[in-house]
């Protein structure tokens, strides 16, 4: 039942994942070709792939992806800092804990759209507004993950940390962060995916000035133009970036940390 990943070679994982991806593409193509769904709404995978590669080749998709990625990166960084601060604050005492809990239960369920007027008032129709919306989407689930992680650190880890003279930020950095690292990582993983989603959604709402839009703006446009192949090619871009980041970034961090320490099987 319990599988032991360590003995499995990395190559095997890559081959298996590649196989899974190919199967999914094949399945898509098959369904599209079967004609049970209207091709206007469900184009063939091969058509999408073609359009994708054309637009990659001429640089357009890469360009707009970089625009979105830069937004996401900024949003994620700000969120990470705020979420860590909020979580540590909550660990400082009951009052702060209650405060963070109240803030989370108030703001977490609020749709981003709800903050548009506020974002507009504070940041105007600017990049800052989109980053604000991204942060709102990322911070709260991160806070839940981080806080659960901090609260379930084995007591003895903290006690040993206090014993050797660690306090405040040093204790946080030296003991609490590594001890809660499975939660921290899963919070960041969730945050990353959420940031994509809300960046796309926010770009669609806020629009873009002239030609400087990102992927979200592109999706909005292609959807408006009823260019469904274009929309799917943009979505394919998101998927590709998602897989690359998962494999290169998150998996390698996990292998160097929590997997190496046997904190996670």
């Amino acid at each position, binding site marked *: 039942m319990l599988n032991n990943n360590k003995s499995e070679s990395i190559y095997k994982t890559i081959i298996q994942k590649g196989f899974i991806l190919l199967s999914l593409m094949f399945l898509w193509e098959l369904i599209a070709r079967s004609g049970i769904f209207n091709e206007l709404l469900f184009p063939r995978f091969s058509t999408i792939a073609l359009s994708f590669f054309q637009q990659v080749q001429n640089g357009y998709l890469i360009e707009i992806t970089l625009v979105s990625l830069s937004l996401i990166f900024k949003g994620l960084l700000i969120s990470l800092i705020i979420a860590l601060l909020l979580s540590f604050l909550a660990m400082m005492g009951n009052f702060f804990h209650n405060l963070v809990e109240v803030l989370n239960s108030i703001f977490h369920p609020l749709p981003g759209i709800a903050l548009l007027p506020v974002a507009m008032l504070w940041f105007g129709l600017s990049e800052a507004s989109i980053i604000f919306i991204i942060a709102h989407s990322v911070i709260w689930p991160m806070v839940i993950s981080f806080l659960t992680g901090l609260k379930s650190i*084995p007591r*003895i*880890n903290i*006690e*040993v940390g*206090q*014993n*050797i*003279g*660690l306090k405040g930020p*040093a204790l946080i950095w*030296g*003991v609490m962060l*590594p*001890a809660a*690292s499975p939660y921290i990582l899963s919070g960041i993983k969730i945050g990353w995916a959420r940031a994509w989603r809300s960046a796309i959604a926010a770009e669609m709402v806020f629009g873009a000035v002239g030609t400087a839009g990102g992927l979200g703006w592109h999706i909005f446009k292609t959807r408006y133009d009823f260019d469904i192949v274009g929309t799917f090619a943009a979505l394919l871009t998101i998927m590709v970036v998602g897989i690359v980041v998962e494999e290169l970034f998150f998996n390698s961090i996990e292998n160097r*940390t929590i997997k*190496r*320490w*046997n*904190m996670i099987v």
Partner: protein
Amino acid sequence: MLYIDNVGKSFINNGISVNVLSNITFRVLSGEFFCLLGPSGSGKTTLLRCIGGYEKVTSGTIKLNNHTVSAPGIDRIMVFQGFDQLFAWKTVSGNIEYPLKVNGISRVERRERTEKYLSLVGLHNYANYYPFQLSGGMKQRTAIARALALEPPLLLMDEPFGNLDAITRHTLQRELLRIKDETNTTVLFVTHDIDEAITLGDRILIFSRQGTVKSQIENNLNRPRIPSMPGYASLWANIYETLGEG
């Protein structure tokens, strides 16, 4: 040096307050090797945790060098009971070295001390192992090395040799005594083993099952103490009887 004055401690269990320690009074002199002996569940760990500053006493006071103990501190290094006190994200040598680094000890001396205490506990070949790769006894020995490497004025040890075989245990007992004398450390040592208490302790405090002090015994046997020496057997019998009284 350490004054335990009429200490009481209770926990709330299922809504009811349960007394775990009552009226504990004793003092530990500087440079003394002081043993706490008592049945399982008699409150040895709880008392040590109060002295360490990890729990608040319900009544009474604990004073270390005339300051009331209120929080953990580097002046009292604790070897906790059990195997899980190592940082899972650090190797054996990392676990020993990190506290030295935190306390501003130079890189060179850190290296030196780490090697010294690693050898002492017989783990020089396992410096790069992570805790999950160690046996129970090896984890315990790493924790002991970590505490010793800090060379603290007061060492609180909660059944540190509990899971070691006779040979290793004897070696470590001998080494602990040597280090104590060298550095003039004070040791407060919890054990459930009568032989160990006799071998190590200058004084032995015996707990009752109810968490009170049953008796305090002076141990004036000459060191090194071996079971066949005169006075050992009678001391053993005396302690065993005191413990058994219930």
